[in-house]
């Protein structure tokens, strides 16, 4: 079995910058899903930098690609890239999770750039399936990209959606699995008996690829448009908490509340120090 995480990719300035925005959100709300957001950064960065067709000022354009963060608890990573792309201002991070804030602990469809509300696990992929079917009926060439989690894949509805995607030959649906191999209590196998994801995805009829989810070049290559006749599944092997040494692969950093300024400072320090390759 290939160990996709063998090479520990050093975070470049852009990856550090996006993670600093995540910390801004954590600081604003004094809480958030740290590990689940940090593992996602390169996936979202490559999607928004190189793959997705969008216009931050015209979010309902018919020819936009649709993106759904089905593992909605990674929302801080999504907010960071949306801010970076100009969907809304960085100032909103200051009120993250506060009363009357636009940005809460899970994505809401009223936020510019967010297609659909997610948060309850296992919904977003089916919504993406519906969108992909609808685009086909409309003969619209746009694509639907859905990021799911491996913890989220405990949900039976994920597998219902995969069957439907395969049956309907949704070649316009690209599913990206943030496989950080750690959910709240332990690994997906320890908690839910879920392993051998690649074999499972292949057996569900998907064109299945694997990549190191922090390898920007590798992600770009894997997500580059290729003609298929089936839905694509890109399994991204990632490190939960990537970039924060003490949070990496640490179940205690899945989510934190009551974050004080000292902890925020330690997160920034850890992020901004050069990492060992």
């Amino acid at each position, binding site marked *: 079995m290939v160990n996709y995480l063998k090479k520990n990719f050093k975070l470049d300035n852009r990856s550090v910058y996006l993670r600093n925005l995540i910390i801004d959100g954590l600081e604003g709300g004094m809480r958030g899903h740290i590990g689940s957001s940090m593992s996602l950064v390169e996936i979202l960065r490559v999607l928004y930098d190189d793959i997705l067709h969008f216009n931050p000022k015209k979010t309902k354009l018919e020819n936009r690609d649709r993106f759904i963060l089905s593992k909605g608890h990674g929302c801080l990573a999504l907010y960071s890239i949306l801010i970076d792309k100009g969907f809304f201002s960085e100032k909103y991070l200051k009120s993250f999770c506060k009363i009357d804030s636009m940005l809460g602990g899970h994505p809401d469809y009223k936020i510019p750039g967010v297609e*659909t509300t997610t948060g*309850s696990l296992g919904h977003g992929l089916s919504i993406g399936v*519906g969108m992909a079917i609808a685009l086909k*009926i409309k003969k619209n060439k746009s694509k639907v990209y859905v990021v799911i989690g491996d913890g989220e894949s405990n949900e*039976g*509805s994920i597998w219902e959606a995969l*069957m*439907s995607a395969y049956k309907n030959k949704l070649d316009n649906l690209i599913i990206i699995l943030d496989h950080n191999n750690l959910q709240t209590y332990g690994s997906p196998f320890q908690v839910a008996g879920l392993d051998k994801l690649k074999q499972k995805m292949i057996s569900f009829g998907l064109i299945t690829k694997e990549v190191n989810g922090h390898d920007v070049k590798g992600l770009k290559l894997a997500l580059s448009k290729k003609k298929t006749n089936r839905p694509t599944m890109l399994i991204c092997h990632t490190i939960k908490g990537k970039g924060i040494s003490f949070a990496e692969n640490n179940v205690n950093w899945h989510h934190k509340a009551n974050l004080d300024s000292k902890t925020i400072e330690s997160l920034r320090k850890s992020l901004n120090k050069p990492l060992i390759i």
Partner: protein
Amino acid sequence: MRKKILEELYKAAKKNKKIVFIGSDLGPDILKNFKKDFPDRFFMEGAAEQNLISSASGMAHEGFIPYVNTIASFLTRRCYEQIYINLGMHKSRVRLIANGGGVVYAPLGPTHLALDDISLLKNIPNMTILVPADSVEVIKMMRATINHNGPIYFRIAKGGDPISTEGMYKKFKIGKPYKIGKEYKNIIVSTGVMLDTALKIRKELNSKKKQIGIVHCPTIKPLDSSEIKKIFKKTVNVITIEEHGLIGGLGSTINDILKLEKNKKIINLGFPDSFVKGYGRQHEMLKKYNLDFSGILKKIKKII
């Protein structure tokens, strides 16, 4: 009514290219013509209700109007959260056609009964709950609601149900209660196929010189509360009857509306807060729980 709503759906889909049909795992003859004439808008997606609802929401997001059809119990309880978030919160233009609301599937046992469907869906903001009494009414409902902005639940009975609403009104309007008779002191409030029972009871009582009116509520949510208050202004005895649990159905809706009104006695008749026992046919189950003609008549006679 079950056949008519699908026939009407086919006719509507001919005119409106946004209409999509999604079934679970229904009989092979379901909407054959729809599948033949509009294959790109016909989907049979399996006994996977969670996926059915969420993907319908995705289609609605893209401007389509999906009609999702399966058995009422599975279309509500199994995928409640998907309905709550992806239809209710998003105000999705998705329509749920629920077969066998109430005890229609009594022979199949308690797993297939839907005596809580109205109650569950009533808790969802933006949801519209429609309970037609017969095939005449269901056609009017369909025609009037195609472009309604938000999700709709159609609680469909068995099929071949007696026609009770012929000539009652011309155009269906969401929320409107319909009054039958000019009697005000005693009124039966019904929804769905119970209207037929209410009409029979009224006929029987009127023949015995006892006066009773009927208010038919094809909409449970949003029910026009000011209209209800207006109709019931002079009413003393209000008797609600329904093929649903007593918690959260028509009766509780009427109770909520009339709770501050004075000089009224409200009696709610429906299924008790317990799992229904036994099998039999729909009419036998209604009789067992005193919700048939004679059971309800007996209770009304004691009141009026």
